[in-house]
C-alpha cells in the first residue's frame, strides 16, 4: 500500500501509525503528555535505550544479534565512574573512556564471531556475562557514588532547554541514519545480512565488516553507559539490565527483518519513540510498572502479527 514512497519512509509508515495512535490516545487522556517538559523527559529517558537501538539496527541489518550492550553499559558506567573520580572528570575524557570501553568489547565480539564461526547470539551471550561480571568485580558489587560535577554534564546538562542526552541521541540518529543508507559500509552491512555467502563471493571482507559493525554497536553502548552514569550520578554494575532487549524491541517495532538485510534507522527511531511514549503515557496515567512491561510485550506481539510475512517469518 505504501510502495510509492521512498523505501525508508515506506518502512517507517507502520511504526509511525503506531506512534501516532499512542500519541493521540495519551494526548487525549493525559493533558500533561504534550507539554515540552514532558516530551523532553520522554526523550531523555529513552536516550540510553535509543543509542543501543541504533547499534542494534546495524547488527540486525547484518543478520546478527548483539546481546551484550546492557552489560557493556554497566561496565562502561563503572569504569568511567572510577576514571572520573580518580583521573579526569572532563566530559571529553569521560566520553573517550566510555566509548573506548564499548568499542573494545564490540571489537572483541566481532573478532570472536569471525574466529570461532559461532553465531553472534552465542558469542555475545558470552560477552554479556563476562562484561557484567567484570563490572561487578571492578566495583566490588556496589555502585560507585559521588562523581565530580563535570562528569555529570553529559547526562544532566542542557542546551536551549533540551537535555544533552536528547541532543546526543539526535546527532547519533542522524549520523547513523546517513551511514546505513548512504555509505558503502551501510550497503555492505545490508548485503551481509541479506546473504552473507553472496556478499563474501562478491569480495566483501566479512571479518572486517563484523569488526566495524560490532565495534560501532559497542561504542554506542559505551556512550549509553556514560549517559546512564551521569544521569544517576553513580557507576552502577547493575545498570542497563536487559536494555539490549529493549533496543532490539525498538528495531523490530520499526519493522526490520530479524534475519538481516532490511532495517532503517528512521524506522528504529520511530519504534523507539513508540516504546517511550507507551511507557511515559502509562506513567502519566499512573499505571503500575508491571502493567507497562505487559503492554510493551503486547504491542510487540501485535505489531509482529500485523506484519506477518514481512519479518522473515516462516509463513
Amino acid at each position, binding site marked *: 500500500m505504501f510502495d510509492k514512497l521512498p523505501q525508508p519512509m515506506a518502512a517507517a509508515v507502520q511504526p509511525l501509525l503506531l506512534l501516532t495512535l499512542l500519541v493521540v490516545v495519551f494526548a487525549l487522556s493525559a493533558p500533561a503528555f504534550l507539554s515540552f517538559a514532558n516530551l523532553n523527559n520522554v526523550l531523555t529517558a529513552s536516550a540510553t535505550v535509543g543509542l543501543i537501538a541504533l547499534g542494534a539496527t546495524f547488527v540486525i541489518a547484518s543478520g546478527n544479534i548483539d546481546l551484550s550492550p546492557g552489560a557493556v553499559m554497566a561496565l562502561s558506567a563503572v569504569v568511567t565512574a572510577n576514571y572520573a573520580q580518580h583521573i579526569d572528570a572532563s566530559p571529553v575524557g569521560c566520553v573517550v573512556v566510555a566509548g573506548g570501553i564499548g568499542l573494545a568489547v564490540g571489537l572483541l565480539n566481532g573478532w570472536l564471531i569471525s574466529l570461532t564461526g559461532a553465531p553472534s547470539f552465542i558469542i555475545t551471550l558470552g560477552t554479556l556475562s563476562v562484561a557484567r561480571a567484570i563490572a561487578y568485580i571492578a566495583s566490588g558489587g556496589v555502585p560507585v557514588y559521588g562523581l565530580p560535577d563535570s562528569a555529570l554534564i553529559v547526562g544532566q546538562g542542557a542546551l536551549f532547554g533540551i537535555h544533552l542526552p536528547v541532543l546526543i541521541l539526535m546527532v547519533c540518529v542522524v549520523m547513523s541514519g546517513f551511514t546505513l543508507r548512504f*555509505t558503502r559500509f551501510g550497503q555492505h552491512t545490508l548485503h551481509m545480512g541479506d546473504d552473507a555467502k553472496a556478499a563474501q563471493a562478491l569480495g566483501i571482507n566479512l571479518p572486517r565488516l563484523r569488526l566495524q559493525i560490532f565495534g560501532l554497536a559497542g561504542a554506542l553502548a559505551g556512550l549509553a553507559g556514560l549517559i546512564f552514569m551521569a544521569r544517576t550520578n553513580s557507576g552502577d554494575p547493575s545498570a542497563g539490565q536487559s536494555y539490549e532487549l529493549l533496543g532490539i524491541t525498538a528495531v523490530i517495532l520499526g519493522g526490520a527483518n530479524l534475519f538481516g538485510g532490511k532495517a532503517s534507522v528512521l524506522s528504529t527511531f520511530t519504534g523507539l519513540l513508540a516504546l517511550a511514549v507507551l511507557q511515559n503515557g502509562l506513567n502519566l496515567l499512573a499505571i503500575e510498572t508491571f502493567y507497562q512491561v505487559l503492554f510493551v510485550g503486547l504491542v510487540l506481539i501485535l505489531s509482529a502479527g500485523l506484519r506477518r510475512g514481512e519479518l522473515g517469518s516462516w509463513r
Partner: protein
Amino acid sequence: MALEVRDLRKRFGAVEVLRGVSASFDDGTVTAILGDNGAGKSTLLKTIYGIYPVENGTVRLGDLDISNLAIRERRRQGIEMVFQDLALTRQQSVVANLFMGREEVCRPFGVLRKKKMRAVALQALGKLGITIPSLERPVASLSGGQQQAIAIARALLDDPKVLLLDEPTAALAAGEVSKTLALIRSARQEGKVVVLVTHRLNDVFEVADRVIVMKHGSIFSDRAVTETSPAQVISEIVS
C-alpha cells in the same frame, strides 16, 4: 592475457575434489566444461575466482600469478564469475546488486555515488538488452530469468577479461537461454576468456570452441568442438 591453471588440487576433508587440474584458456575463446555431478566443475571455477584458496598449484592471468590474491583483487584484475546460485542479495535493489563489492564512492567516508551508479547501470543493462521494471526494486521482485540476467550483467559490468559461468542457463526458459548464449558469443567477440560450466549439450555445441570433460576431479578429455560430437561427449561423461 590468457588464463592458465597449473596442477590445481583441492580437498574437502578426506575427499580430493581437484586432483591436479592443468589447463589454459585463451582470449576470445569459449571453453565448455562438462562432467557428472560432483566432478569438481564448480570447485575449479571457484578456485580460479578465489572463493577457495589455492592450496596447491597456480592460477595465472597473463604474466600475473594471482594464486594468492583475494576475490576483490582478482575482480580488479578482470575476473568475474556468475554463480550457480547467482549470489544475489534479494532484499537489496538491482543497482545495489550490480555494484556489490565494487561500489562507486566518494572518499573519505565512502559515501555512495548513487546517481552515477544508476546511470552506469542503466547504460549497461541497455547495452545488454536487459529490460527490468525498476533499478530500485528489490531483486526478489524480479522473475527468475530477470535475476539470472542481473547476475550476468553484474559480471559484465566492468568489462572483465575473464568470465566464469557456472550453469548460467540451468534455470532459464528457452527464449532466455538463447539471449544468454548471445551474450556469451558477444563476450567471445570482444576477446574475453569465457569458461562455461553446463549440463546442456545444446549450449555447448552452439557457443563453445572447446570442450573439456571432467571426471573425479581430473580432466578426462579436452578437444576442439569440431573434433567431437554430442554422442561422444555423453559417452565420455558416463563412461
